[in-house]
């Protein structure tokens, strides 16, 4: 019996030893890469976590590779399509990257609110103040302190069309929104088919293209002050100014004779993926659609009626003009963009932040081959941009006469943003306008 218990004890000891060795092996992974006290990684490695994936991620890496090599810094970029939901988990779990790339000012504001985002260094602050308009500076400033830098930008509110068809129908680029609506009517009378197409389907973000369209109309018809009040929640969705924008939007998107070219009836807008409209513009079955500059990326895989890949340009197969203003005045642009914010003040992290806010990086970004990125950085040399559409977008962003506003949905609190998207989808499905507005407005009660 004694020999048995000795044997047993040895067994147990062996088991403990094996478990211990396993634990040491796991711990070994940790000691190999000592991390700094502030939660970031080693002194010369900077991790950036952002929403851009695939081609865009490769282009971003290309934009800073040379600089990083020259400065002996390794930048590890991690792209995550679910960034907007996962960053909250990472912040709560204290698993922080060195730098986060926030695609929405509302999300950045929420991150700043957690107290985990550190203020920018004086180098970065000077860069941001010199290179960006006050509209842009406002998005990275909280209570008078600067917490980040704007990175890239996109301009929304372009009407994509086929120049050859416009010529055939005797149309020119409309000067006002009412001209646009009457032009759509003319095309409908000529062809007998719906001329305008839209797609709102985008997974959990379904509805955003409609929300952007509405925001463009609010900014254009009611002006920047009302727009800002609306984004803050002071002007309600049920307000006459917003209601008027809904009505203007409905002149196109709720008219069964005008939509949804190439897809079906009005509710088919909801089932159409936002990027799929590119194929219908390319093959000519849809005469016009409203989408941001980045729709250009989708044309590379489409075919014209003749079976060729469409060429984007004013004399090419597809081209775009800015959404004409509702009432004349300063040109107002609704857009988007990403913001970088640092989670620690390591030397390397702060150096990268300063570089990302500089004109050098912005110029490097737009000259990455085939890149669809542009920047609102005033130091950007627009002539270096080879793509004519992006070049015009950069010039619009840089012009001192341009009023720039972030897409209203992205700037609102997340609960309101989601309700906004859902309200747009419901409205397209046939919910009365007043009811849809009230439904979205109700979400402000949960915005905290």
């Amino acid at each position, binding site marked *: 019996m004694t020999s048995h218990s000795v044997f047993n004890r040895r*067994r147990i000891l062996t088991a403990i030893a094996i478990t211990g060795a396993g634990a040491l092996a796991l711990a070994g*992974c940790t000691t190999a890469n000592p991390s700094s006290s502030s939660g970031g990684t080693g002194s010369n490695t900077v991790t950036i976590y952002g929403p851009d994936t*695939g081609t865009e991620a490769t282009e971003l890496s290309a934009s800073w590779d040379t600089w990083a090599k020259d400065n002996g810094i390794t930048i590890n970029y991690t792209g995550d399509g679910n960034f907007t939901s*996962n960053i909250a988990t*990472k912040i709560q779990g204290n698993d922080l990257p060195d730098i986060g790339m926030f695609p929405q000012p509302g999300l950045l504001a929420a991150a700043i609110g957690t107290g985990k985002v550190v203020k920018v260094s004086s180098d970065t602050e000077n860069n941001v103040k010199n290179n960006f308009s006050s509209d842009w500076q406002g998005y990275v400033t909280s209570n008078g302190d600067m917490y980040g830098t704007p990175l890239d930008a996109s301009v929304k509110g372009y009407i994509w069309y086929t120049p050859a068809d416009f010529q055939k129908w005797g149309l020119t680029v409309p000067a006002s929104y009412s001209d646009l609506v009457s032009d759509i009517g003319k095309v409908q009378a000529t062809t007998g088919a719906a001329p305008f197409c839209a797609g709102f389907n985008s997974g959990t973000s379904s509805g955003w293209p409609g929300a952007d369209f509405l925001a463009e109309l609010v900014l254009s018809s009611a002006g920047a002050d009302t727009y800002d009040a609306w984004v803050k929640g002071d002007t309600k969705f049920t307000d006459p100014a917003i209601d008027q924008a809904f009505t203007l939007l409905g002149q196109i998107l709720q008219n069964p004779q005008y939509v949804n070219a190439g897809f079906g009836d009005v509710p088919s807008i909801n089932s159409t993926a936002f990027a799929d409209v590119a194929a219908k513009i390319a093959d000519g079955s849809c005469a016009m659609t409203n989408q941001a500059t980045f729709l250009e990326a989708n044309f590379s895989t489409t075919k014209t009626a003749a079976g060729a890949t469409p060429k984007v340009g004013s004399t090419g197969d597809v081209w775009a003009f800015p959404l004409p203003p509702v009432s004349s005045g300063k040109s107002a642009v609704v857009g988007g963009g990403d913001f970088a914010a640092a989670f620690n003040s390591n030397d390397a992290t702060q150096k990268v932040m300063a570089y990302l806010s500089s004109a050098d990086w912005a110029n490097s970004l737009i000259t990455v081959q085939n890149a669809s990125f542009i920047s609102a950085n005033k130091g950007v040399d627009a002539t270096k941009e080879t793509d004519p559409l992006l070049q015009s977008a950069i010039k619009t962003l840089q012009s001192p006469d341009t009023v720039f506003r972030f897409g209203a949905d992205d700037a609102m609190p997340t609960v309101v943003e989601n309700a906004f998207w859902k309200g747009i989808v419901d409205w397209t499905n046939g919910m009365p306008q007043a009811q849809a507005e009230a439904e979205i407005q109700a979400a402000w009660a949960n915005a905290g």
Partner: protein
Amino acid sequence: MSATTDDLPQPIAHRSERARERAIRKAENASLSDTKRRLSSTGATIAAVVIAVIWTVPTFGLFITSFRQPADINTSGWWTFLSNPDLTLSNYTNTLQFTDTITVAQSFVNSLVIVIPATIFPIALALLAAYAFAWVNFRGKNILFIAVFSLQVVPIQVALVPLLSLFSNGVTIGNWAVFPGLNLNGVEGSFARIWIAHTIFALPLAIFLLHNFIAALPNDIMEAARIDGASHGQTFFRIVLPLARPAIASFAILQFLWVWNDLLVATIFTSGSNFPITKLLTDLAGTYGQTWYLLSAGTFLAIIVPLIVFFALQRYFVRGLLAGATKG
């Protein structure tokens, strides 16, 4: 007297009992063969084939789509290939060359590196726990087992933040660091966090399934082993392990498929160069969805390994699904 009166009817009772048993068995057999006959009738076979075809059509469509030209995928349905077959391998080559911090091929290797330990660890731990719950008597056993069992109802999403916080902050009570934290934030090349996370999430179900199987092993075998002087360790390694093989295999399939298909745990607990293939699949479509036509090809590349595992262990699968189902 009493003996005779008592003895007399007994054989009759026995006989009638036996007759009844026979009748029951006969009826059972009849109903069994009836079910068998009904299930293998022409009508049932046709119905099964129709269901199988309907079930397979979308997968087949996806398969065809993966070989079509990108522009065709964008503009028409897969069935149009019947009239206009214009097939290409470019989707597969483009998918394999797709780079997003790492290439699809690297992520494929990452998936294997994640999934193999994340299958072995929970099974190894759960087997030991299951054996203890089934055949070792200790105080509080039932309460502990119910506690483990009830952990199954905790959704993964609820546990993400606390677990992440445990990994990065550790646990300190007062000034005493109970667990110092792993310090693995943003460290490239370490899979420790995702292995631990998957193991933790798998354990409740693994212990439950394996316990029910191991507890159902005949008591006689265990007693015989004990009488022959086998310790718990010897009983475990020489008797329980070989007998539990079907249950282990079936749980291994479940766990393998779950970890292979997992995206949520992987995006939270790994970073950059450690992403598995599911993460790359979600990125294939591009930031603006401009290359979504690659998804069908990517999907077929990603299911190769699960298919191999499934077919290799398939014979255990049906048996294993019943593991734990029969124990009251």
